[in-house]
């Protein structure tokens, strides 16, 4: 056993030798992985056997990892340069990153379309690289020309496994981005609501790199185990909480074609993943050997089990109305602008939407239902003994879940990835020339709208958190059993009767639809107005009181 001494504490953690070692390691690993990927891909491409399908995912993964290794080596070698560039060009990089992500995200879709087109021309087994080249050049006699490399790159995309690997990579990347952005944004929003500025330093522009810096700090922290903690379970718990949160995104459709897996049971898959995540919290509380953690875990289990019932009932309403569990189908049914959104279909779906939102607050442990980590009561609840990377995992999970349920609310009740603009307004442009179609596409549907809506509900969650006090445990149970549950029962029964009795085009349906749409629209407009007013008058509302210092004071 090494004893930790004072010199150890003073010694810099990363010396030049460490740096050189890491640099060399990353370069070698990166080159090796890339070479392996290219070589193996080449061999597989030439051999073109279906049996290699499993290997294709490995090729792609190895390629990506290799690239990441080389990038890491670059950052280590040119750390000063990278830092300077990041600091001086912070805002352009940030905006460019956002635009780049949007653009980059389209490319796979286009590629998949092309590949599928080529694949359709060659029914049967896998398409060979030569056939790809032929399709690309339009020349039946493949000549191993420059197009051969492009064909080699396209070849893996015809296998489902490759696409799955890419999708998982995409999901992980997106979740990381959402969590980091969400944490930064929450701090900014909280700051604004409290007449502060929030993070302002790291990265230059409004502290945009704060989450990144926090993450790096957390990674370097000492890994603490409490005496008497059940180490194995203590280690396991963050993963049990984190991975279901990731899995939520597998079934979440960002648009009709943009879903990692369009599961037939997508809706209840998400529901199941929300439920499984609780076990991580329960485990964390148990393994920490801390009574506050234990109490937090019990609260979480209690709350989650109770709120799953209204949540499930609220989910039943759209299921019943549309007769499907497939999330893309649910989204497609609401494509005609915001009067066709499910929340406004009848009074009972409206109730269900509200109940759903409240219940998801409870299932994400967000205020006013943040009892499991209520810091004024339970210190930090189940998180009390966690630090460093494990703690960060819990937070990643929480923010990922927050965005996922916000996005799920928009999929189920608020028109999924479709814009609020009525579809009929833009119908003419949908079949126009390319630029009209492009404008139509941006304005009317797609992942941009989906993410915007997701972040709208995310913002509502933040807003509630920084405004409301916390509810007491018995009140949480009361709200669940005596308020939400009866409400969902009413919604369920009423929705049944409505579907049974009211014809879709009847005057009653139209009138109710109009009224509910008006209510919903007014609510959103009012919220936007409040936010805008608060933002525009952010200096005046705080007050102009300033005690001017005395001369020499």
């Amino acid at each position, binding site marked *: 056993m090494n004893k930790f001494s004072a010199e150890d504490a003073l010694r810099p953690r990363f010396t030049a030798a460490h740096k050189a070692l890491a640099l060399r390691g990353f370069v070698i690993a990166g080159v090796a992985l890339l070479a392996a990927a290219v070589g193996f891909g080449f061999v597989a491409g030439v051999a073109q056997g279906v049996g290699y399908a499993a290997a294709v995912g490995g090729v792609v993964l190895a390629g990506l990892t290799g690239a990441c290794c080389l990038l890491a080596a670059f950052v280590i070698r040119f750390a000063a340069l990278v830092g300077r560039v990041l600091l001086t060009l912070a805002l352009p990089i940030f905006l460019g990153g956002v635009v780049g992500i949007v653009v980059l995200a389209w490319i796979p879709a286009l590629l998949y379309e092309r590949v599928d087109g080529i694949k359709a021309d060659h029914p049967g087994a896998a398409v060979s690289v030569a056939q790809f080249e032929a399709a690309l050049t339009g020349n039946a006699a493949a000549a191993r020309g420059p197009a051969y490399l492009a064909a080699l790159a396209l070849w893996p995309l015809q296998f489902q496994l490759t696409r799955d690997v890419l999708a998982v990579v995409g999901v992980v990347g997106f979740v990381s981005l959402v969590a980091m952005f969400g944490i930064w944004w929450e701090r900014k929003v909280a700051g604004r609501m409290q007449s502060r500025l929030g993070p302002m330093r790291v990265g230059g522009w409004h502290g945009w790199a704060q989450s990144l810096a926090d993450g790096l700090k957390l990674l370097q922290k000492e890994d603490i185990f409490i005496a008497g903690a059940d180490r194995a379970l203590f280690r396991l718990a963050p993963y049990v909480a984190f991975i279901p949160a990731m899995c939520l995104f597998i079934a979440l459709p960002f648009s009709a074609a943009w879903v990692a897996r369009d599961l037939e049971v997508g809706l209840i898959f998400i529901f*199941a993943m929300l*439920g499984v995540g609780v076990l991580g919290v329960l485990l964390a509380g148990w393994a920490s050997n801390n009574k506050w953690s234990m109490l937090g875990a019990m609260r979480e289990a209690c709350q989650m089990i109770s709120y799953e019932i209204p949540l499930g009932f609220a989910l039943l309403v759209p299921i019943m109305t549309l007769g499907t569990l497939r999330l893309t189908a649910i989204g497609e049914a609401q494509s005609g602008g915001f009067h066709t959104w499910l929340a406004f279909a009848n009074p009972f779906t409206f109730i269900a939407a509200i109940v759903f939102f409240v219940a998801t607050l409870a299932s994400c442990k967000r205020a006013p239902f943040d009892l499991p980590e209520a810091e004024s009561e339970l210190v930090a609840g189940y998180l009390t003994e966690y630090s460093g990377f494990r703690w960060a995992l819990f937070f990643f999970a929480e923010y990922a879940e927050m965005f996922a349920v916000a996005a799920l609310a928009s999929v189920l009740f608020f028109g999924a990835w479709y814009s609020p603009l009525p579809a009929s307004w833009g119908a003419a442009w949908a079949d126009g020339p390319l630029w009209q179609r492009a404008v139509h596409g941006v304005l009317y549907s797609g992942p941009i709208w989906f993410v915007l809506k997701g972040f709208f509900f995310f913002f509502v969650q933040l807003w509630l958190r920084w405004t409301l006090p916390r509810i007491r445990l018995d009140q949480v149970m009361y709200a669940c059993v005596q308020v939400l549950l009866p409400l969902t029962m009413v919604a369920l029964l009423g929705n049944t009767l409505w579907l049974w009795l009211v014809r879709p085009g009847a005057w009653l349906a139209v009138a109710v639809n109009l009224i509910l749409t008006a209510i919903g629209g007014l609510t959103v407009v009012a919220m936007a107005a409040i936010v805008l007013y608060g933002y525009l008058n952010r200096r005046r509302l705080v007050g102009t009181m300033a005690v001017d210092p005395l001369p020499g004071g």
Partner: protein
Amino acid sequence: MTRGWLYRLPLPALLAASALAADGAAAPAADPGKAVAFYLVAAVTVGSALGCAIATNIVRMAMCLLGTLGGVALLYFLMSATFLGVIQLIVYAGGTLIVIVFGVMLTSRAYGVKLRPRPVEVLAALVVCGALLVGLVAVLLRTDWPAAPAGGAAEGTVAALGGSLLSVYLVPFELASVLLLAVMIGAAYLAQPALPTAGDGAGPEE
């Protein structure tokens, strides 16, 4: 210390991966990806079940049970029974397991009392279970099972399931709901304090 990686075995990641691999699920023809997935999931499932048998700590047993339940859910996914897989996750992992952990926590104040089986019992159980396993496997491998029909119902399973629940299996379905009601009342009756106090419902409810 070195055991850490074992617990980092990404069980739920596998779950995700095979949820991905599952629902395409076309032909039962030779599909190495699928075979690899099956063996991985099977290893996780049986491994966690063995963990259940070996573990002495009841919470660890429950966590091993989570591994088994998740593994079985993954196997359902692999067999294109996605609905069942998800229901398994909701009801078992999200409900039953939490109830079990609750039960553990409500009844866990047995300090210093080691609930260990006697070696004789362990030996006997090992012999019996081992013999059963060997016998079962031997029989299974010798039986000539009817050949698998092509395809299998992958798509539209949910609708078909719902249909059969409300037609052919209507009576069992209703019986199950009556049973659930009875269980609800029974559990509430059994677990209630002898004299219900007029407190404000502070205790955790099940």
